[in-house]
């Protein structure tokens, strides 16, 4: 089923959300609410989705698609002020979709959860080339790079995922997800999947291990947990039983093999992983215990350095890929200076530029420790030359300009950085500065 001009081809009676005490929501009720909300949106603009509740987040996204407004991904209830400023500055008519009070927001607000009047007549068909979402990555240019997501491309990706994970056969699968819907992985799995596959999303809190256990116990049928290595590590380490699962999916960073083995053994369920990137979306999957090779999604073409994504075209990859003759591939490390933490990525070059822009900083550099990918408590270190300024001063200046995950956990103030003749900083020389 290619983009058919509607938000969803699903039957109106199927369940699309489990909203805890508010009860289940059918596809029909959801579509009516989205059509009514679309009528309340501004004439033109760009939607910044800051909703914390998954139901509100999808309602907002669906209404924006009907209305022809691209949704800027990267928000969420804890959106960084720098992201909101960028959205307001670069996107005409940017407005924020919210489901709670948000005083001091620098753009017009639209309450997604406010009651809407009865829906006007139906909205026109959604053309496949309509820009439904824009994802952002931090590049080395100092400005976030925008990645356009046409509706047709998102539909094809969701249908490829549904096929890969067997989400179109038989009964509706209940999805409990720990990833925010405004992050590319969470967007694909908890915003697009419920529209294009037979899944119902749990909309309550899922942050702490006890939240996840309660959420899984509260939904019926075939259960799918969509999460990250960080959450899985905590859930496995706690060692408490979970409701029966049909599968667990993880993405954002490679899952340690021991965690995958523990999930398969302790929960009796397949542990699957998705390989993806904000630029291209989900590209491949694997069952971790079967080996380190990834199987590309149907319809997607991969070659070293480049993905060809249906509806989007060629996208440069930031990982080195090594292919086997059967089309499966291995990840062989990063091609760029990107660092990943908690599912977010940043460019070291851009972080260094931000640091250099802090008043009083003469020179400075961010360093990623060797164990950044494997140790959840591992964070960046910064070496800074800033006579007369304290580490707290500099940290205070970085807050709001740098995502909290990338703020340096150790800040080492030095008299000078050990730059060599060409201005480079050998790692060993830097390490020698540690107190």
């Amino acid at each position, binding site marked *: 089923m290619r983009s058919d001009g509607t938000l969803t081809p699903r039957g109106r009676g199927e369940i699309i959300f489990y909203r805890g005490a508010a009860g289940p929501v059918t596809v029909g009720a959801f579509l009516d609410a989205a059509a009514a909300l679309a009528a309340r949106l501004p004439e033109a603009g760009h939607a910044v989705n800051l909703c914390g509740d998954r139901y509100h987040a999808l309602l907002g996204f669906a209404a924006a698609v009907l209305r022809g407004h691209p949704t800027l991904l990267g928000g969420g209830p*804890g959106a960084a002020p720098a992201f909101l400023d960028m959205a307001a500055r670069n996107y005409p008519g940017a407005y924020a979709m919210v489901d709670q009070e948000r005083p001091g927001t620098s753009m017009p607000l639209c309450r997604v959860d406010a009651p809407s009047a009865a829906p006007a007549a139906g909205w026109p068909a959604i053309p496949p080339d309509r820009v439904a979402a824009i994802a952002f990555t931090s590049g080395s240019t100092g400005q976030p790079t925008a990645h356009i997501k046409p509706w047709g491309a998102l539909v094809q990706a969701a249908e490829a995922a549904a096929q890969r994970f067997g989400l179109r056969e038989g009964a509706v699968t209940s999805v409990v997800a720990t990833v925010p819907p405004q992050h590319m992985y969470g967007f694909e799995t908890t915003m697009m999947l419920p529209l294009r596959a037979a899944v119902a999303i749990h909309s*309550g*809190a*899922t*942050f*702490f*291990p*006890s*939240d996840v256990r*309660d959420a899984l116990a509260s939904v019926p049928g075939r259960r799918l947990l969509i999460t990250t290595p*960080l*959450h899985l590590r*905590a859930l496995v*380490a*706690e060692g408490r039983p979970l409701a029966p699962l049909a599968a667990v999916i993880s993405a954002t960073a490679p899952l340690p093999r021991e965690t995958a083995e523990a999930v398969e053994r302790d929960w009796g369920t397949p542990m699957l992983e998705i390989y993806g990137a904000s630029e291209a979306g989900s590209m491949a999957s694997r069952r971790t215990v079967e080996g380190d090779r990834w199987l590309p999604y149907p319809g997607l073409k991969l070659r070293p350095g480049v993905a060809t994504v249906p509806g989007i075209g060629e996208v440069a990859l930031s990982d080195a890929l090594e292919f086997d003759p059967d089309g499966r591939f291995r990840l062989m490390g990063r091609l760029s200076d990107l660092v990943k*933490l*908690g599912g977010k990525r940043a460019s070291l070059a851009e972080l260094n530029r931000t640091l250099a822009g802090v008043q009083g900083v003469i020179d400075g550099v961010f360093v990623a420790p060797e164990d950044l990918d494997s140790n*959840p*408590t*591992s964070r960046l270190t910064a070496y800074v030359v800033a006579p007369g300024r304290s580490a707290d001063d500099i*940290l*205070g200046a970085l*807050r709001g300009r740098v995502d*909290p*995950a990338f*703020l340096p*956990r*150790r800040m080492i103030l030095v008299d000078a950085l050990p730059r060599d003749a060409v201005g480079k900083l050998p790692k060993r020389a830097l390490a020698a500065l540690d107190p």
Partner: protein
Amino acid sequence: MTTQDATALQAQSADLFESEVARLIVGALSLEIPPEEIDPEAPLFGEGLGLDSIDALEMSLVISKTYGVQLRSDDERNHRIFASLRSLAGHIARQRAG
């Protein structure tokens, strides 16, 4: 024992427990700051100690392992629980007792 004595004793044991939780957090998160230097009234997240959501997950794990206390997001008091070391230690102590 007078009521005043009892209150003083209680306050003292709360202080001790606070330092214990501080040591636990600093150890679990490999923080650079010595536990005794954490301001018990300062925010744990954002400004103050500067923790983030990855740390919150790690903290929930070590708190569950050590005290058998489960942190939950839908807890209405969550904002207050994580407001400072003092409020977090108080929450753990109450949950453990209850």
